[in-house]
């Protein structure tokens, strides 16, 4: 679901074919019939943005038919735990959970806690950001005292136990409801339920694959939670052939999250400190609090080691290891927020590194206008991309919104080194680091990012040398002495520092358990600790698949500690025996007195299954022999998330921000805490209960083609790829084509309140209309690879998309919106602006549209959630930055 694996990850898809050869049944749930569907046993067409309703239906099917893997659920999930009396479910509040504040459009999650433990109380929420979990890194916020015994009902009968709460929450997600919301005929839906449950349990496992088709939604995080709940109920986590696979789209997008270039994270999913973190102690307490189980309790060791790597000798116990050097976040500083700040002139400089926001980010126009309003921008890429040339060939030049000679932005283009011209590691989609050897020297001025940032830092240090300004201390104290090869820093040495070094011996540490909080170790990313164990670059290993076992432990290196299947302790029953011989992965070896198996156990090697922690034990020691989920503060997998999520402890179906239909399940239409940015240059199409949504009657979604890569910077420029998909097309069903008079291969244009985009029409049976609650709903699909440079060019599809985000991770909702489609080409130049204004007038769109996000119940819906300083009734005029 939410993935078109055969097209976006063709080589990975060989393993699906392999599974088919071994008898697996492949089901593809997707809005359109794709090259993946062509090889699935069953394809299910569903309406974009309704996956939670679908999965909720599956959960309901499992629970109401008692088809869950009971022993697994009882032993490894928090199903038995009792919740606090203060908890109220969406069942009680018309689609809201307890703790909702309409004025900040955010939740106070304290009422979601377990009965017997104290969740961190919050003194109300002054601003929405104060509640936002992006402040919490991967651990999620504290649930203190979970090391202690938690009130539970092993029989899963207690009305307040998670199991029963789950059952009640999903009771209304019936097959009939799924059919009305998703448009999936009842029988097809039940086929999927039957197949999924029949292929799970002791003897069998089912795997779930998703991609950005799930993440790019205003409730993206909850999509994945919903998938996780199904997989947990069926016992498909931590077991061979089970799991949830996030197929990621870039060579090192996993790595750039582990070692983040993200504002809210430090390496290893440590949260970026915020204004509530007075000092190191407070920070550490917030991440790995007292009286909790699991490895996050050692956050102090991870943090101190990181600071030691950052600031070297300057970091001492006395000065709190330079914790104060770290800048503090106090809200949303995500890329979209930043771009809007650019438009408002709040940002001076911008580095664009191997990315192409002018085409690749949602609301491309906003991106370009933002960049056109900077002091300077540095673009580093292989080729001349749209983000470097916006000042002379952006679409806004044609409409007069950007005028070259009035655009002040100073642009530096630095040619980048390609993947064969530098050595280093990518982390692929299954957390595996693979080292690349350098093949050739970069030509001309081309340099690696490693070179660029090392020398930028060196020059900055030289420039600031001797400065008395306290503000410059972090730069001056920055540990910046890596082994050099000529004037290129040695990537291997950087990786060595990321792995971690024992400062007493000067040798690399062998894993994160070696890290200390006393400043005696330095480690750049604790989860990568072990990649340079024994002073050997483990990620460089290339032992042939023909010479090693099924889990190929000697090819590359997978974090954590080269464990290929996370939480694989769960592949054995509480007593440590494999659930079944067929599905054995790791198990307890009584003779040796240690865990063993095909994979490296994701568990303390010598901790027996029957181990019970002593009273008051914390952290790893606090984990029992059957606490398979060793990163969780209670050692259990969370069916119900007592904390860590901004939008509720349980996935709930909300309609997308832009939707043609009313939410059939609750009064609450969309996510009540979704992040909206109500402003003239970011208009929304109206959605029920707002009026005039029929002006944009069709559901729009966009995704990839095999033949191109993301924004096309690495494919539109290549003849061999460009010739395979030379033009931007829009795929429509025969029914919609007839309705709108669209002709195969002719021109048409797609319109939203943001933009209109030209494309050639592909009329195909691969798309089909859906019957949603008695109405016929049509869906439109486009690939988003085109821009105005390259061998093949076309309009920028991302211009159609507005900015509204998931409150947990601030990922934009770009997979689903509403649109109109008309035959013929769009107007050009200034006429285009009038054309769009016409649409906005007909739809009565103002910056206020879509910002009144609470629609549940009859009590005060609260104010529209506008951008600060926006007059709610002002019409969207041509945005700032225009002449």
């Amino acid at each position, binding site marked *: 679901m939410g993935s078109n694996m055969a097209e976006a990850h063709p080589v990975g898809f*060989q*393993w699906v*074919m*392999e599974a*088919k*050869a*071994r*008898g697996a*049944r492949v089901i593809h749930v997707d809005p359109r019939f794709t090259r993946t569907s062509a*090889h699935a*046993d*069953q394809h299910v067409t569903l309406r974009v943005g309704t996956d939670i309703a679908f999965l909720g239906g599956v959960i309901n099917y499992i629970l109401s038919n008692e088809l869950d893997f009971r022993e697994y659920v009882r032993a490894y999930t928090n199903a038995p735990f009792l919740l606090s009396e203060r908890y109220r479910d969406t069942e009680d509040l018309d689609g809201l959970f307890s703790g909702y504040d309409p004025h900040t459009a955010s939740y106070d999650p304290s009422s979601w806690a377990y009965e017997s433990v104290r969740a961190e109380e919050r003194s109300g929420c002054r601003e929405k950001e104060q509640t936002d979990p992006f402040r919490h890194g991967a651990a999620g916020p504290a649930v203190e005292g979970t090391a202690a015994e938690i009130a539970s009902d092993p029989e899963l009968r207690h009305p307040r136990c998670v199991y029963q709460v789950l059952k009640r929450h999903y009771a209304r997600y019936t097959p009939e409801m799924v059919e009305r919301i998703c448009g999936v005929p009842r029988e097809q839906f039940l086929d999927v339920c039957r197949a999924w449950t029949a292929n799970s349990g002791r003897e069998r496992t089912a795997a779930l694959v998703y991609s950005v088709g799930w993440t790019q939604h205003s409730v993206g995080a909850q999509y994945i939670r919903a998938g996780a709940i199904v997989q947990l109920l069926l016992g498909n986590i931590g077991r061979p052939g089970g799991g949830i696979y996030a197929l990621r789209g870039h060579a090192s997008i996993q790595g750039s999250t582990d070692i983040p270039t993200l504002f809210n994270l430090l390496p290893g999913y440590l949260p970026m400190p915020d204004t509530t973190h007075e000092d190191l102690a407070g920070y550490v307490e917030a991440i790995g609090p007292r009286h909790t189980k699991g490895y996050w309790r050692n956050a102090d060791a991870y943090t101190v080691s990181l600071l030691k790597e950052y600031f070297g000798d300057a970091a001492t116990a006395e000065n709190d290891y330079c914790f104060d050097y770290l800048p503090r976040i106090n809200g949303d500083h995500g890329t979209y927020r930043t771009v809007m700040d650019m438009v408002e002139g709040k940002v001076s400089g911008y580095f664009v590194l191997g990315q192409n926001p002018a085409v690749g980010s949602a609301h491309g126009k906003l991106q370009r206008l933002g960049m056109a309003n900077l002091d300077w921008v540095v673009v580093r890429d292989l080729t001349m991309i749209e983000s470097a040339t916006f000042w002379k060939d952006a679409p806004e030049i044609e409409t007069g919104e950007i005028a070259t000679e009035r655009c002040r932005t100073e642009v530096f283009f630095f040619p980048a080194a390609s993947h064969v011209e530098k050595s280093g590691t990518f982390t692929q989609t299954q957390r595996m680091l693979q080292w690349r050897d350098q093949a050739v020297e970069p030509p001309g001025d081309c340099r690696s990012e490693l070179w660029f940032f090392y020398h930028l830092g060196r020059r900055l240090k030289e420039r600031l040398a001797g400065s008395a300004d306290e503000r410059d201390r972090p730069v001056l104290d920055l540990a910046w002495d890596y082994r050099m090869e000529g004037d290129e820093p040695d990537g291997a040495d950087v990786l060595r520092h990321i792995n971690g070094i024992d400062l007493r011996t000067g040798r690399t540490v062998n894993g994160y358990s070696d890290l200390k909080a006393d400043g005696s170790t330095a480690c750049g990313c604790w989860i990568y600790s072990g990649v340079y164990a024994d002073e050997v670059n483990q990620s460089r290993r290339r032992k042939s*698949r*023909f010479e090693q076992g099924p889990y190929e432990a000697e090819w590359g290196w997978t974090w954590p500690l080269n464990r290929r299947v996370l939480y694989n302790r769960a592949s054995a029953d509480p007593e440590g025996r494999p659930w079944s011989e067929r599905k054995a992965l790791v198990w307890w070896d009584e003779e040796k007195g240690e865990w063993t198996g095909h994979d490296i156990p994701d568990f303390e090697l010598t901790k027996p299954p029957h181990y019970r922690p002593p009273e008051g034990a914390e952290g790893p020691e606090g984990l029992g022999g059957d606490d398979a989920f060793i990163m969780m503060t209670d050692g259990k997998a969370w069916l119900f998330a007592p904390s860590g999520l901004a939008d509720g402890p349980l996935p709930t179906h909300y309609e997308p921000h832009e939707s043609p239909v009313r939410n059939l399940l609750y009064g609450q239409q969309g996510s009540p805490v979704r992040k909206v940015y109500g402003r003239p240059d970011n208009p929304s199409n109206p959605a029920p209960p707002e009026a005039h949504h029929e002006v944009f009657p069709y559901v729009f979604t966009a995704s990839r083609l095999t033949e191109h890569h993301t924004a096309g910077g690495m494919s539109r420029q290549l003849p061999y790829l460009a010739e395979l998909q030379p033009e931007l097309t829009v795929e429509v069903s025969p029914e919609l084509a007839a309705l709108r008079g669209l002709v195969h291969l002719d021109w048409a244009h797609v319109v939203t309140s943001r933009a209109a985009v030209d494309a050639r029409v592909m009329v195909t049976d691969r798309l089909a209309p859906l019957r949603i609650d008695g109405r016929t709903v049509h869906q439109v699909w486009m690939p988003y690879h085109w821009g105005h440079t390259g061998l093949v060019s076309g309009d920028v599809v991302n211009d159609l998309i507005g900015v509204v985000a998931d409150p947990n991770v601030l990922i934009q909702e770009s997979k689903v919106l509403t649109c109109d489609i008309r035959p013929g080409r769009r107007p050009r130049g200034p006429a285009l602006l009038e054309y769009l204004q016409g649409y906005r007038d007909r739809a009565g769109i103002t910056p206020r549209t879509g910002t009144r996000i609470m629609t549940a119940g009859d009590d005060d819906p609260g104010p529209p959630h506008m951008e600060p300083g926006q007059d709610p009734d002002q019409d969207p005029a041509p945005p700032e930055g225009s002449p």
Partner: protein
Amino acid sequence: MSQDDGILREPRSDAGAADTGARPFGTDRHGPGKGRGGDGGDGGRERSMVPRAEFRSYYGRPVLKPPVWDWKIAGYLFTGGLSASAALLAAGADLTGRPALRRGCRLGSSAGLLASMYLLVADLGRPERFHHMLRVAKPSSPMSIGTWILVAYGPGTVLASAAELLPASVRATLPGRLVRLAARPAGLASAVVAPAVASYTAVLLSQTAVPAWHEAHRHLPFLFTGSAAAAGGGFGMVVAPVAEAGPARRLAAAGAAAELVTSRLIDRRPGLVTEAFTTGRAHRLRRASECLTLGGAAVAATLARRSRTAAAAAGLALLAGSVLQRFGTFEAGVASTRDPAYVVVPQRERLRRAAAGGESPV
């Protein structure tokens, strides 16, 4: 792995893979009823062929590649034929003492030869490599055989015509005399090869996958030699005075007859491919050709015996008729490759008959 049969030095990308056995499509739900016979596929409908509206194709794309040859090859078919039959007339005239006819035809045949050479070389993608034709002698390649035929034919023809062109000053000299001495044997030698020159071009076209040319492989030789004879005869009538042109007239008439009859036979062949000859541009060219040839032949047999003008006119008509016949035939071939129906329909038909137990037609 039995796969690794020592021909490869690195493991194949499917070594140890089972995905090649991927189990398509669906579990047993619709029951075997939905499974289809391997022969027909869904095509029970399609198997009832001939009505060509029914035939299936890949988005109407041609199955075959239309010939990359252009008008030059069609032109060569004519010039080659003309040269050949002219050489025959020349030799006959030489033996029977018809100096004017001899001189004209000798010159005509080598002119035709030189034109042919130019056209052939100019049509190559890499003209500078024309001599690569002499690398091999392949019985399976009419073009290779043709090359060697021309090698055998050319020198005699050129020598013979050289004799006609010797300026008076040279005629008396020793080399001059030698040339004149050699002219007759040379002319006769080339005359012996000439019929091959005139007819091999038919095989040249037939030995292809081009439906119209291949299907007509029994007729083309007669069409082409007939056309050559008509052209040669016509040429003789133009260049020689009525008194000497008797053989030319007779050859023209005979050739024309052969050409016209074969042409009609081709139009009467059963099967879809014939449409390539009887429709479109090919059809128009060949009709025009028939009129000219018929007219020319008629006049040759009548008026041309008396009036030199009539003879010349008839000769030109025959020449033109021959040209058009060659272009028409060439066009028919091209048309039969542009439309996939000419490939799919007859082959389907053949399979159907074979399946029905009948012999697949040759």
